[in-house]
């Protein structure tokens, strides 16, 4: 009898909630007209949103990026704002989780009424968020996300409200292969990557495609299951047996360091190569000797002199704050994303989501941190300058290693610095 009563009680409760829910509406589709992204700007501010990892493993990058954007917003407001209105920045933590990102995006759009969102800096989160942005018709500029599927759907159509601030992966891989094959004369490569991250998998695929198209051979391809794996000796032994001239590996910076150490311990004497995940300050610090001479592509030349005024501005604004330094390249991408948005709003002359979106598609020659940015309307990917780097011993006489820039890449063309 007890359970019957209990069942009835629960059913009653839920029936009441259901009635309530029916009043609420059927789902995201119907909300669009009411949603904040639909074209309302409150009378005196322009509301912008930011989503990024502010806690958790990736917090260092997320916080750095947020701070970079906050400076720009403040400076912009000091100069009179955009279109005469002050800019309000709303931000939420997504803990690098897809579901959280969706919630954060909805909160920004529904509760805070933002007209555009900057972020996230992770491809999986960006994929999750793109559905929300397309539904609500609010443009988003994803920052550190090289995965192609973010802006393009399976049929090759571009997602109208999704943009990115860095280049897609193919834009890195091709010049890397080019340089290795043509400039350094390498013919045999091995690929070693972690399976659990989307960008690593796609990098491996694209590398193989480009490399073989040039005429090189991939003598070994090995994987490790997750970014938590730390012992690669089994795979490395196999790779070393095939005697590659270079091991290319997109992995987390910690795995790269460990891989370098383990490979050398096993007697590997060849080169290493990698993508933008290699561009972390701790790598030359911890594994400089092992990885010396490696070749990697970076989305940004951290050594560039053009970054100095930006860095000085950060120093002045935030003081001796380590987070911006530890944030790697993410704060610069935040900077660029803001710049793109700012240009779009100014171009559009209006601050509603649709106008911003249209303008964003067509921005040209926006002054980014290292060069000019132009958006490609077909793909929503910008053209920007990349860098070719290697690890070399410090040139100022101190012990240790650092990332030395060998040259820059634009539009697929490599320009090496002359010594």
């Amino acid at each position: 009898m007890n359970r019957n009563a209990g069942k009835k009680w629960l059913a009653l409760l839920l029936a009441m909630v259901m009635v309530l829910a029916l009043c609420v509406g059927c789902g995201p589709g119907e909300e669009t007209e009411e949603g904040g992204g639909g074209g309302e700007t409150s009378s005196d501010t322009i509301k912008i949103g930011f989503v990024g990892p502010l806690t958790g493993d990736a917090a260092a990058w997320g916080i750095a990026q947020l701070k970079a954007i906050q400076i720009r917003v403040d400076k912009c407001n000091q100069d009179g704002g955009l279109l005469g209105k002050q800019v309000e920045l709303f931000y939420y933590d997504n803990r690098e989780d897809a579901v959280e990102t969706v919630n954060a995006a909805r909160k920004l759009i529904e509760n805070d009424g933002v007209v555009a969102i900057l972020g996230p800096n992770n491809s999986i989160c960006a994929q999750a968020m793109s559905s929300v942005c397309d539904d609500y018709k609010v443009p988003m500029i994803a920052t550190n996300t090289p995965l192609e599927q973010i802006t393009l759907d399976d049929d090759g159509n571009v997602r109208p409200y999704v943009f990115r601030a860095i280049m897609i992966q193919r834009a890195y891989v091709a010049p890397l292969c080019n340089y290795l094959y043509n400039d350094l004369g390498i013919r045999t490569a091995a690929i070693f990557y972690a399976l659990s991250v989307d960008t690593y998998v796609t990098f491996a695929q694209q590398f193989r495609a480009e490399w073989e198209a040039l005429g090189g051979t991939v003598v070994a391809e090995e994987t490790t299951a997750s970014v938590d794996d730390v012992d690669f000796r089994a795979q490395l032994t196999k790779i070393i047996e095939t005697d590659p001239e270079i091991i290319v590996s997109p992995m987390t910076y910690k795995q790269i360091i460990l891989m370098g150490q383990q490979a050398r311990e096993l007697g590997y004497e060849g080169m290493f190569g990698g993508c933008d995940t290699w561009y972390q300050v701790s790598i030359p610090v911890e594994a400089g000797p092992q990885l010396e001479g490696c070749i990697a592509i970076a989305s940004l030349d951290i050594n560039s002199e053009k970054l100095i005024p930006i860095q000085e501005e950060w120093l002045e604004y935030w003081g001796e704050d380590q987070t911006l330094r530890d944030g790697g390249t993410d704060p610069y991408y935040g900077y660029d994303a803001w710049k793109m948005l700012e240009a779009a709003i100014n171009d559009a002359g209006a601050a509603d989501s649709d106008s911003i979106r249209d303008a964003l598609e067509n921005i040209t020659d926006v002054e980014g941190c290292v060069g000019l940015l132009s958006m490609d309307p077909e793909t929503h990917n910008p053209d920007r300058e990349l860098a070719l780097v290697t690890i070399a011993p410090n040139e100022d006489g101190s012990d240790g290693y650092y990332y030395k820039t060998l040259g820059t890449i634009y539009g697929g063309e490599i320009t090496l610095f002359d010594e």
Partner: protein
Amino acid sequence: MTIINAYWTGIITQTGIMLIAIIGVSLLTGFTGIFSMGHAGFMCVGAYVSALLVKSCGLPIWVGILCGMAASMLFGLLIGLPTLRLRGDYFLIASIGIGEAIRLIVENTYDLTGGSTGMMDIGRFTSLPVVLLLDVLVIIFAVRFLKSKFGRNCVAIREDETAAIAMGIDVYRTKVLVFIISCALVALSGALLGHYLNYVNPKIFNARKSSELIMTVIMGGSGSLTGSILAGLVLTPLPEFLRTESAQEWRMAIYGILIVLIIMFRPNGLMGNKELTIAGIKRFFQRIRLLPASRKSAKGKE
């Protein structure tokens, strides 16, 4: 007309989705005493099978979801048959491996599933009324299950397995059955989640998700359906309200401490074996003297 905006309906919808999975785990863990640390893997199966069928074969979504549940039950059968023979603590270890193995399989099949890139545009289906309807159905199902002979057998197994055997219960068969049912429920939840986000990715169904499921059930009360539901209603949306520095780590640390305390002192969880009933509420109020004690309630609905 909107009373609550889409952000809040989103939260409620997600809670409703997770509730189904929590009930599934509750039947398995709370009532039968089988602890599984890899159950999110079966959510993953449900979500992916549904996603694949809808996206590649163009099947209507509800068919996809049903197939997802069926696939998960099949998987559950295949995996459960050998492993449920193991002793409880061994099974626990095995279940960790199961969860990881499923995730690994997905990541290793890039051409089919998109591997770690996940799959996008798999179709929307889940909305608040749908979820609430399913919640009600699932709860009714769970209650009937527990009332039935099978349900009581499960509880018997949890209390003392050897005694259950002595009483003539086919322990193995019951375990397999409840395992499959819980797989079906979590698969439903997983598929709903996928069609809510319009996106699936193996990371959504990782060990952390499994841990959250089991922690919720333990905290709510191992023998109580109401306990699991209440815990689910409170704990699932909790991260949304805790958006401060290190809040998530503190949340997990506190959960951990609670789990340890509960296991040490009150393994039946906070609600113990009790369910929420009208008679029970009446008795509560009588005990704290808000309602007059009446002789009728003693003969009442018992």
